[in-house]
C-alpha cells in the first residue's frame, strides 16, 4: 500500500466523478460557444460611418469625456443644430484620450474631444489628426476661472513662487497642467524646475490636498469647487495668468475622414460652432444641460465657474501651447502646428 502525502487524489470515486464532469463540461462548452458567437457577430450597435440614417440624416459618432467642457455639444444636439445640418449625432462617453484617440483613428468615431497638448503630442508621433473646432478656453479672468492651483491655508504657500520645492498634483504629467503651472511659477519669480509634480486624477485631488498628501493641486471644475468647499484656497489661476485666450481642448477628426467625407466634416464643424456660440450666450442653459450627462451635485453646479466657449479657431492658440510645451520639455522638437489645422 502506498501512503499518499499532499493533496489526496482519491480515485476510488472516479466513477462518481465522471457523470458530473460529463454533464458540466459539454454544458459549459455549449454555453461558451453560443456566447462567443453572439459576442463576435453582434456589434455594439454603433452606426456605420457614411451610411444614411433615418430620414436622410447622416449618422455621426463623437467621443467625449463626461466633463463640463463638452456641455456645448450636448446643448447643440438638444437644440437641434446638428439635425439642421443633416447630422444624426451620437455622443459616446469615454474616459480620456487613451480611449478616444484610437477610436477616432480607427474610424469607429468620426470625431473626438481631447486637450490640445495631447493632440500636439499625437500629431508629432505621426497620428494623422485634424482639429475642427475649439473645445473650451480659459475665462481669462484671474480670480474666476474654471481651473486653479489650490492649497490649504496652513501650507505656507501664498503665491505661485512658493510652489518651488513643493509637491503639486496635476492630472497628467507633461501636459497642459504642469506646463502652465511651471510658467506661472517662473513668472512669479520662483524656480519651476524645483516643483515636484505628481500625477493624480482630478476627483482624487480635493482629498489629497486636504489631508496634506500633496502640498498643492491644479484642479478643474467641478472638483475645484469641491476643494474650495473643503477649505482649500486658490494660489494661482494658471490658465488665466498664462494667457487670457488660452485654448484648452478641441474637437478633432482624422485626415482620412476629412478626405473621405468633407461635407460631413464641414456640416459638423458648422453646427458645432453654432453650438459653441449659443452656449456662450446662454450660460444658464449650458449649466442646465450638465444634468443630462453628468451627476454633478446641484449645489456645486450652481457655484462653479464654467469655461469660455468660442467658435473661432486660431493657429496662434495652438502655437502658444506648442511653445509652452517645448519650453518645459513636453516636446523634444518644435511641433508643426499647421499639420493639425483644418
Amino acid at each position, binding site marked *: 500500500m502506498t501512503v499518499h502525502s499532499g*493533496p489526496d487524489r482519491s480515485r476510488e470515486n*472516479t466513477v462518481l466523478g465522471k457523470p458530473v464532469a460529463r454533464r458540466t463540461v459539454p454544458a459549459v462548452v455549449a454555453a461558451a460557444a453560443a456566447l462567443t458567437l453572439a*459576442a463576435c457577430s453582434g456589434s455594439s450597435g454603433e452606426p456605420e460611418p457614411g451610411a444614411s440614417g433615418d430620414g436622410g440624416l447622416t449618422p455621426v459618432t463623437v467621443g467625449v469625456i463626461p466633463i463640463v467642457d463638452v456641455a456645448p455639444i450636448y446643448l447643440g444636439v438638444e437644440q437641434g443644430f446638428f439635425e439642421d445640418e443633416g447630422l444624426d449625432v451620437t455622443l459616446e462617453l469615454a474616459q480620456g484620450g487613451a480611449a478616444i484617440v484610437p*477610436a477616432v483613428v480607427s474610424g469607429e468615431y468620426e470625431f473626438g474631444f481631447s486637450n490640445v497638448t495631447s493632440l500636439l503630442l499625437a500629431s508629432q508621433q505621426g497620428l494623422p489628426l485634424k482639429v475642427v473646432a475649439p473645445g473650451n478656453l480659459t475665462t481669462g479672468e484671474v480670480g474666476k476661472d474654471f481651473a486653479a492651483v489650490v492649497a490649504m491655508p496652513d501650507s505656507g504657500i501664498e503665491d505661485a513662487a512658493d510652489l518651488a520645492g513643493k509637491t503639486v498634483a496635476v492630472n497628467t504629467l507633461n501636459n497642459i497642467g504642469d506646463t502652465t503651472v511651471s510658467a506661472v511659477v517662473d513668472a512669479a519669480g520662483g524656480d519651476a524646475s524645483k516643483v515636484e509634480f505628481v500625477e493624480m486624477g482630478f476627483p482624487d485631488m480635493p482629498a489629497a490636498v486636504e489631508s496634506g498628501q500633496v502640498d498643492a493641486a491644479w484642479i478643474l471644475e467641478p472638483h475645484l469647487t469641491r476643494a474650495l468647499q473643503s477649505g482649500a484656497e486658490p494660489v494661482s489661476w494658471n490658465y488665466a495668468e498664462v494667457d487670457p485666450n488660452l485654448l484648452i481642448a478641441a474637437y478633432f477628426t482624422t485626415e482620412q475622414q476629412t478626405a473621405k467625407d468633407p461635407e460631413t466634416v464641414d456640416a459638423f464643424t458648422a453646427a458645432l460652432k453654432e453650438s459653441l456660440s449659443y452656449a456662450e450666450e446662454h450660460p444658464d442653459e449650458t449649466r442646465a444641460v450638465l444634468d443630462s450627462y453628468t451627476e454633478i451635485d446641484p449645489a456645486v453646479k450652481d457655484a462653479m465657474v464654467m469655461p469660455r466657449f468660442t467658435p473661432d479657431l486660431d493657429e496662434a492658440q495652438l502655437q502658444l501651447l506648442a511653445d509652452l510645451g517645448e519650453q518645459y520639455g513636453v516636446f523634444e522638437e518644435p511641433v508643426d502646428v499647421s499639420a493639425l489645422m483644418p
Partner: protein
Amino acid sequence: MSRGRPLAHRAVWLGIAGVVTLLVVLQVVPATGLVNPDFLPPTTEILAALVERVQTPEFWTALGDTLVTWITGLAISVVAGVVLGVVIGMVPFLRAATASTIEFLRPVPSVALIPIAVLLWGTGMQATLLLVVYASFWQVLVQVLAGVQDVDPVASDTARSYRFSVLARVRTLVWPTALPYVMTGLRLGAAVALILTVTGEMLIGTPGIGKLLAVARESGAVPSMYALVVVTGLLGVAVNLLARALEHRALFWHPSVRGEVL
C-alpha cells in the same frame, strides 16, 4: 446536501457578522472624522445613494451589460484554458515548448492593451472582452496545467497498461485529478474577469456599472460613486458564492469538501 443544517446556518451567520462589522467600521470612521466624510461617506449616506440608484432603469441596464460581458469573457477563458491546459499538460513536448511563452505573456497587464483593443473594436463590449479574456485566461490555464501535472504516475501507468484511450484517460484520470485545481482556477478567473470587466468599462467606456462609476467619479458625486463601488463588491461576493456552490457540486467526492461533513 453535503452539509449538516447547523453547520450551514453557522456559515451564513458568521458571514453576515463579517459584513456587519465592515458596515459598522465604515460608518464610524467617517463619522468620527478620521477621514473626511466628503471623501469617504459613512455607510448611511452610501446606502441612501444606493437606494436612489437602484430605482433608476439605467442602473439595471448597466448591471445587465456588466454581467453579460463578465460571463462571456469568463466562458471563453474557461473553455480555452481548460482545453489548452489539458492538451498542453498531457504532452510533455508542448509543455516544455510553451513554458517560456506563457511566462512571458502572463505578467503583461491588460490595461496596456487598451489602445489596441479600442483600435480593433472601438469602445463596445468586444474591446473590454479582450482585456477580460487576456487576464482570466492565464488564471485558468496555469491552474489546469498544475492539475494535469499532479496526476499520480502509478495510476497513469495503470491506465496505460489497460490501454485506455486518450479520451478515457482524460475522463477517468486527468479530469478528476485536475478538477480541484480547475475549480480554484475558475474561482480566480471569475474574480479577475469581474475586476477587468468593471475596469474596462471605467477606462474604455464600455456600457456597464464601470461606466456609471466613472461618470459619478468625474462629477464628484462621491456617495453615488461609493454606492456603485458597493454594488461591484457585492457582485464579487455573489460570484464567489456561485463559484463555491459549483465547486461543491463538482467536488463532492474530494476530501476538502467531504471533510466538512465530519
